[in-house]
């Protein structure tokens, strides 16, 4: 049916989640829609996920990519918790964790050093993100 299958590839599965208390989910929804149109399978888990919810969803849904949208400024707390949780489940190695939202430059390097593959700030072109996922999703 989809182009993915015709090339004998597995469909890229992504979890898109909003973490914590901030209620601004427009960005996450736009990404979910764009990923779908790119042929990815997107599990959208909605607002107010705790880090452990995200880890559990990533494990159960066996996703290749976890995209966390965060605008609240709590990234330095919650993102490491997600990374640790994935690590504890032995899932960090084959999961691509990307972050979208508002993250100050000085924090981006720290997040990347901790294991985040990339941080996409406001105004990032959708194609840039899609291309990044295509090239880096673990297979």
């Amino acid at each position, binding site marked *: 049916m989809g182009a993915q*299958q015709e090339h004998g590839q597995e469909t890229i599965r992504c979890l898109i989640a909003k973490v914590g208390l901030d209620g601004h989910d427009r960005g996450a929804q736009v990404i979910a829609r764009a990923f779908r149109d790119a042929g990815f399978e*997107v599990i959208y888990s909605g607002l107010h996920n705790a880090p452990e919810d995200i880890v559990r969803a990533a*494990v159960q849904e066996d996703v290749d990519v976890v995209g966390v949208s965060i605008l609240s400024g709590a990234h330095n707390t919650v993102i490491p918790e997600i990374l640790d949780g994935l690590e504890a*489940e032995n899932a960090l190695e084959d999961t691509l964790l990307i972050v979208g939202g508002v993250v100050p430059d000085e924090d981006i390097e720290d997040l990347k050093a901790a294991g985040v593959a990339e941080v996409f700030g406001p105004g990032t072109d959708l194609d840039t993100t899609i291309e990044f996922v295509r090239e880096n999703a673990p*297979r």
Partner: protein
Amino acid sequence: MSLPTETLVEGLLAGEQRALARTISAIENRTEGYRDLVARLYEHADPNETAVIGVTGSPGSGKSTLVEELIAAYRGRDLDVGVIAVDPSSPYSGGAVLGDRIRVSSTMEDSGVFFRSMSARGALGGLSTAATEAVRALSAFGMDVVFLETVGTGQNEIDVVRAADSVLLLVPPDAGDVVQTLKAGVLEIADIFVVNKADLDGAERTVHELEDMLRMANEGPGPDRSDGWEKPILTTVATEGEGIDDLVGALEDHRSHLRASGGLASAATERTAAEVRTLVEDDLETAIAAAIDRRGGMDAIAESVLDGSADPYSAAREIIEAMDLEDALEAGDTHAAQDARRRP
């Protein structure tokens, strides 16, 4: 990529969710070797020990919310619960947004629940096979109850809930004419009707209309398929948790009925027969495709019929003569991509 079958089987039987999740991925992707994996799980999956409940209904009828309440009810009884939520995929890109997980997040802080979203990706007709196999994996994992949740709009979805022992059909309160147009196939497979959102106007009328319709169906011509089970019509307000206890009770009644009437055993026989038949057909289809290729492709065969050098019957016969059963046997385990996009 070859499957670490041994690791997955051991992990799954030891209760590791990650092993279960990867097993289901192998089933969905029809990864080379997945049949060996599923076969290994077979002896650990006892249909008597896992109650499989299908939940279907039109979009917006409240399936996810109801399933969330039912999960909570069964968790309250200390039962482990698995969910397979099937969502149609986007027909254009092959992608999908699977949103059923949003509703269940609050019940997920709990290792006794395993929730998996499945798209209708590519596998037209094969989806029900994948869902059946995923249910088996959940059963082998030790789930007491498995929900198969799907939008009840097409034959594909109806086929999915056939894998369930008990099927709940959700009807919105303002259904009105919708009740009269409920597809015959959907009505037949429903064991319990649930008028959800019963706090809204029109719920009572919808219940009456369902009652009338069921009465007509029972009095109508044709064989009696009711099997002695009188299909109950329940009302719920899933968002408030209202009617959930009664619904759980009705599900238990249905399961007792199935046990007593032998329905559970005969359904298992029927399902297994269908499963074996599907596998044979799947593999033969590969052999047929190879034979067609050997005869120069279907277009060339059609041309030869059109230009008068062959007739359709001899062309079909020649394809069958060109078939090599080795192709089918080989297909048995290397089905991967071409199988996933096979048309029914």
